[in-house]
């Protein structure tokens, strides 16, 4: 039986980049201005806390997974496990290394997650595709168990929960909604910038070569195993930082249960729906995944308030969400980023068709 490998045609890889490239300096500046200045000024606590922060963190997590799955072609369903490593490691560093500034702790948490990712990436030298996905599933369950079981990781709290240490940067208190938003945003912007450059570097091109056909990549002299492991490590680094932000900037607390298998699926959804092998796709996918349920619940309350049993409304929303996912998978195999790209092209030549 021949299995069609999960791969995307290479010509779309740089589509989002060229998209940004055309209007880059101005558009980017406007976007950053909006994100850094306008939103904190205008956004209510609710918008910052409950919509923007989780959206940004999920985008970052999607970015991490996309480096591994979308760019290197190694499917992983253990994303949340690495997020947990990042969260618990950052917590441990802040707790046990006195005077460690927050950015360094986040970096350290990410690096530890990266090392763990490297270890769980070792099987990638022997195992491919679908079966590899299952090893990441093992990582997911193992890591979840470790952080539930060994009390050292959560400082012997009876409940197994870690809570955010004081979020401070150079004496500024970051515990306010705006502070946590800006912390998250800064991390996301820096890491996105790194990722954009990374995928355009030699490393990124090697990854894509491996994704498109690893045997061929080996033939032209790419050290396939090394680059696969590197992808696991870098991906876990991103996921680790995302996990730490999820725990401390968004929830304010976390336990092993915050990073369960459903979170892994959620992140996989983000990259598939947003667009595999695309940086912008992660943001679009994260927006879709985090906003749709909220949107559906608002719409449900607005349309049917009091007329339909609340439980049934929830089931309906679940069905609708599942249908939307399938619909997008059918309609846009390359994700929403492609859909938006098409739309742009159409609008540009409007009212002509082509």
């Amino acid at each position, binding site marked *: 039986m021949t299995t069609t490998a999960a791969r995307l045609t290479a010509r779309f890889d740089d589509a989002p980049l060229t998209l940004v490239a055309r209007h880059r300096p101005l558009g980017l500046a406007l976007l950053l201005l909006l994100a850094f200045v306008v939103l904190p000024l205008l956004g209510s*606590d*609710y918008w910052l*806390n*409950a*919509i923007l922060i*989780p959206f940004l963190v999920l985008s970052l997590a999607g970015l991490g997974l996309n480096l591994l799955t979308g760019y290197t072609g190694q499917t992983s369903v253990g994303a949340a496990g690495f997020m947990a490593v990042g969260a618990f490691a950052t917590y441990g560093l802040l707790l046990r290394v006195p005077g460690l500034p927050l950015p360094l702790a986040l970096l350290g948490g990410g690096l530890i997650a990266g090392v763990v990712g490297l270890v769980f990436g070792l099987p990638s030298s022997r195992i491919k595709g679908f079966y590899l996905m299952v090893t990441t599933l093992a990582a997911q369950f193992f890591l979840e*168990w470790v952080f*539930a*079981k060994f009390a050292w990781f959560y400082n012997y709290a*009876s*409940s*197994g*929960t870690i*809570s*955010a*240490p*004081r979020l401070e940067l150079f004496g500024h208190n970051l*515990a306010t909604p705006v502070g946590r938003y800006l912390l998250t945003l800064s991390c996301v912007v820096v890491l996105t910038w790194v990722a954009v450059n990374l995928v355009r570097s030699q490393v990124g091109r090697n990854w894509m070569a491996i994704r498109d056909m690893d045997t061929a990549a080996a033939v032209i002299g790419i050290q396939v195993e090394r680059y696969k492991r590197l992808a696991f490590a870098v991906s876990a680094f991103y996921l680790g930082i995302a996990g730490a932000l999820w725990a401390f900037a*968004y*929830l*304010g*607390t*976390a*336990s092993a*249960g*915050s990073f369960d298998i459903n979170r892994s699926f959620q992140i996989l959804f983000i990259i598939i729906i947003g667009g595999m092998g695309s940086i912008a796709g992660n943001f679009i996918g994260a*927006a*879709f995944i985090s*906003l749709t*349920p*909220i*949107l559906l*619940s*608002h*719409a449900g*309350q*607005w349309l049917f308030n009091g007329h339909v*049993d*609340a*439980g049934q409304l*929830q*089931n309906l*929303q*679940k069905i609708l969400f599942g249908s939307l996912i399938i619909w997008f998978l059918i*309609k846009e195999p390359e994700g*929403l980023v492609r*859909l*938006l790209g*098409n*739309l742009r092209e*159409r609008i540009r030549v409007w009212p002509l*068709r082509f």
Partner: protein
Amino acid sequence: MRKTLRRHLLASLFLLGAPTLLPAIAAAADNQQFVPMATYRVGAYASSGIPWWAGEIDYFRYINEVEGGINGVKLTWQECETEWNVDRIVECYERYKNGQDGAPTAFFFTHSTPGSYALMEKGAADRIPLIDGAGGRTESTDGSVFPYAFPLLLNYYGQASVGINYIAEREGGFDKLKGKKIVTVYHDSAYGRETQAPMQLLAQKYGFENIQIPVADPGNEQSAQWRQVRQLKPDWVFLRTWGVSTPVGIKTAARFGIPVDHIIGDVWAGSEADVIPAGTAAKGYQALAPFPGGSDFAIHQRLRQHILDTGKSDLKDPSYFGKVYYNIGLINAAIAVEALRTAQGKFGNRPLNGEEARWGFEHLNIDAARLKAIGFEGLLPPLKLSCSDHEGGGAARVQQWDGEKWVLVTDWVQADRATLRPLIEAKSAAYAKEKGITPRDCASEQ
């Protein structure tokens, strides 16, 4: 081509534009108190969530329609579905912490221990009391460090203590506990592990052997655990499971020949949903009940007359009336209403904010006469909270499953709160140190 274009346009509009438009829907409301409800009507815990929220909603409706609100202040509420996910509980909290349409939020029912943990600091910062009856963070019983968290009625330490006290009662005295073997089979989660510390303390005090056996989530296959239990031949088993692990535990115990009437379930392993799937194996199983089941209490007669029989109940299936989870909802709602009433006594008969409601909770005193008046005699022990005691009652009844329904077999069994208190204070002091909190001086607040 045209058609697909339109579809794509619509989809993108839906994605990008709609979130900004929708929350603007509003209708003005005066003299109303808002109650956010982080429900779970779908997902793995829906079978407990549906009757639970029905109990709360029915009681609020009763207050609104029969009593005309709390001293004229009507209650209004809005649900958000969380599927018992922490992040969605946080989202719901953020969405509704400032109230809705001008009606302020006075408290937030977390009804989820992980949720209580997640909101602990936000609640304190936003001054919104977090209510989590028979759950929550145990050390938040110490209100001097946790001003805005209320693990009402019976915290997890108390649950362990009530279990041991009941076993002592059955054995004929605390001296009889010496040398006994008590196995705790627990759900391997924060919730399940929470009683390890008090059990250890109590084992030292009374000289019984304390053995802890974890069951990993979700716990739908437990033969390894119960084979171990069978090897140990314990005198009593304390079952601290949750969700599907309870019926599977009871059934597997029966398969291994462990007498079910020597298994004591804890609060969250003691509802109909926990025993019905276990079938005949559960007959004789006992469980702690700070929220007893039954529909013959005074409040049930009133609700039946005004809500259930008039078709206003939130219950889709009326046979759930008076079931354990329905009563959990009633009790939580009633305590909240009484706390608001108490606060209104100080701040005036108007909608209250979180800070005022906290005052109400901390000065709540439901004595026997008041219990009788609101129709909760037998459902609730007298409850008195204070600045330093956010738990109150610290007692539970014990109920036994007769194959059809829960039968209450004891009156209120008190937890040994004096023994547990130092443990709680040590934990809350550690928390205060970690977070740099200066505890309030409760003596001056009374």
